[in-house]
């Protein structure tokens, strides 16, 4: 899931539930909240947009007062809109507005070459609209009032190079016509937004900080796009938010499974106890190496492995035969065995499973009760600690 943020979109917090998948977005009205978990499960399981649509309307259309489904495949963008929500699809040539309230069933439209998608929930005038913040999200489940793809903050820099990129701060502000020409994604002739203060505005590097407060209605498209063009510092709620394109490196964490601690080589509590056939018992709280004359290689001072020497009069057991270590990631909390390329191999019998010969170098998770046979009558019983 490392590319979960690969396709960023921006959203504004609100009432609707939006599920964002790599290739499509589905949002449902708050009244259908009971369906949301199911939708997420579908999407997380890799379902297609059509599967999701099936699931949405399976219980009858009347059960879903409002939803919007925007999907993209082969360059064709399809939007299905129902209820109090509008969706605008912007191509290079035009902007198509779809209003769900205009139909009793739903409104559907497919367009090629769509550059930007914006979904807005039609709601009673929101007093906090002026302070609303556009947040960036990759895939996931969020409650939204509007959704934009590509993200609003990134739009100016991402989609339109020359005319809009502000010259270095030295540029004289007053002579330039309207400092915030609408981005090319919206039809130019709509004219300069009346709300943006042209000549008295600060230098273009920090464009109109104030259009939002004077904006008459949240649905006024012209001023909306004008604001899109101006990721203003006024929206910076914590002083750390960076507008413009983001830096993926900021999200680069250590390798491993997100949300799960990287398993240390030495764990605090043993994950298993090994009972050897010669009577010895060894706890697996670190790497355990088992063999006729085991050797440990390249470890650090704080993570010295445990070496268990077993006798092998017939030399059926290799000098360093196998290793057992606390598992990491999906194997967290269990012991994992790996045959280290032993000459005669290792047989593993797990409870309820047929016996298997370990493949050299391939780790296998050990279930409590598992029995490892190394040859020469040496076996290891794996038990809970």
């Amino acid at each position, binding site marked *: 899931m490392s590319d979960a943020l690969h396709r960023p979109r921006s959203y504004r917090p609100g009432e609707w539930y939006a599920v964002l998948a790599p290739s499509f977005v589905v949002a449902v009205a708050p009244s259908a909240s009971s369906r949301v978990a199911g939708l997420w499960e579908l999407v997380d399981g890799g379902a297609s947009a059509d599967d999701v649509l099936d699931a949405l309307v399976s219980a009858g259309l009347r059960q879903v007062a409002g939803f919007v489904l925007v999907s993209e495949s082969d360059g064709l963008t399809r939007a299905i809109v129902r209820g109090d929500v509008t969706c605008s699809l912007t191509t290079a040539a035009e902007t198509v507005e779809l209003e769900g309230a205009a139909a009793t069933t739903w409104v559907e439209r497919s367009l090629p070459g769509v550059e930007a998608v914006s979904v807005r929930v039609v709601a009673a005038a929101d007093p906090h609209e002026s302070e609303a913040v556009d947040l960036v999200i990759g895939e996931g489940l969020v409650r939204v009032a509007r959704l934009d793809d590509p993200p609003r903050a990134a739009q100016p820099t991402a989609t339109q190079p020359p005319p809009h990129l502000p010259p270095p701060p030295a540029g004289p502000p007053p002579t330039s016509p309207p400092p915030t020409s609408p981005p090319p994604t919206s039809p130019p002739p709509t004219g300069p937004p009346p709300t943006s203060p042209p000549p008295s505005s600060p230098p273009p590097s920090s464009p109109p900080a104030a259009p939002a407060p004077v904006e008459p209605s949240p649905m006024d498209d012209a001023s909306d796009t004008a604001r899109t063009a101006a990721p203003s510092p006024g929206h910076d709620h914590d002083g750390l938010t960076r507008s413009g394109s983001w830096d993926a490196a900021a999200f680069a964490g250590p390798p491993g499974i997100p949300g799960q601690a990287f398993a240390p080589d030495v764990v605090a509590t043993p994950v298993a106890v090994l009972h050897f056939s010669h009577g010895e018992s060894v706890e697996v709280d670190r790497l355990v190496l088992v063999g006729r*004359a*085991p*050797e*440990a*290689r*390249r*470890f*650090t*001072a*704080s993570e*010295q*492995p*445990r*070496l*268990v*020497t077993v006798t092998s*009069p*017939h*030399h059926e057991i290799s*000098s360093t035969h196998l290793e057992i270590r606390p598992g990491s990631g999906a194997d967290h909390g269990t012991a994992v065995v790996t045959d280290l390329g032993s000459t005669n191999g290792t047989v593993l019998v797990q409870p309820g499973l047929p016996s298997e010969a370990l493949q050299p170098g391939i780790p296998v998770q050990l279930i409590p009760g598992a029995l490892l046979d190394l040859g020469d009558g040496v076996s290891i019983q794996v038990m809970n600690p």
Partner: protein
Amino acid sequence: MKQVELHHGAASDVGRVREINEDAFLAAPPVFVVADGMGGHDGGDVASQIVVEEFARLADQGYDPARGAEEVARTFDECQRRIERFGLEQRAAGAGASFHSGTTAVVALLVEESGQPKWLLANLGDSRIYRFVEGALEQVSVDHSVVQELVDAGAITEADAAHHPERHVVTRALGGLDPVEADYFLLPLPAAERLVLCSDGVSGMIDDLEIGAILARTADPRDAADQVVAAAVAAGGRDNATAVVIDVVGLAPDHPYDSERQRESLEQKLGALP
């Protein structure tokens, strides 16, 4: 700890090119060290000497054989502090901002693990630890060098590594800006009847086959160390060459039960075979 008898030999040579010997070694059973200093006069030779002094103190004062890796790590930390302090003093005394003093280190000492004596080996830098078992030489330590990282990454082969222009660039050493962590190795004694610690003035001048050949024909570890160093100098001696050879004496060889041979001898006894 069970008494283990060790025989050892050590030799060091300035080589044919360098003016001073920045290598240093310690042979104080059961602790053995080779350190290859870097930084020129009053730099590298002091750094490598600091490592030898600190490990001599460890050998002198004794250490807990069950906590060998921790003892070595602590000693490395002390070496690092002393080398840093020495560098500060030198720069304060006007040695210039470019003054640098550092050293590699390879250490072998006897420890106890699961009640058995074992070799604990530690490595920082591109000095090497080899073991010689059953007539074959095998490098145990893994160099902390640019070329080794290239080899590990598959960018060059081991054969290329010997001629790579950056083969002398180490990636870990004592005296660097950041504290470094050594690699440790734990070997049962029979797996390393003969150990060789050497600086890159040996391993860079003669290849492993030649080192192995010398070790195979030289029973006495003192002669073996002398001959390995002499061969490195004879091969060009472009760097200080140092070797320490340690033999574990009195190990009962672990002969496998050989049913095949037994049957043959029975047949021979019965006269079935000539």
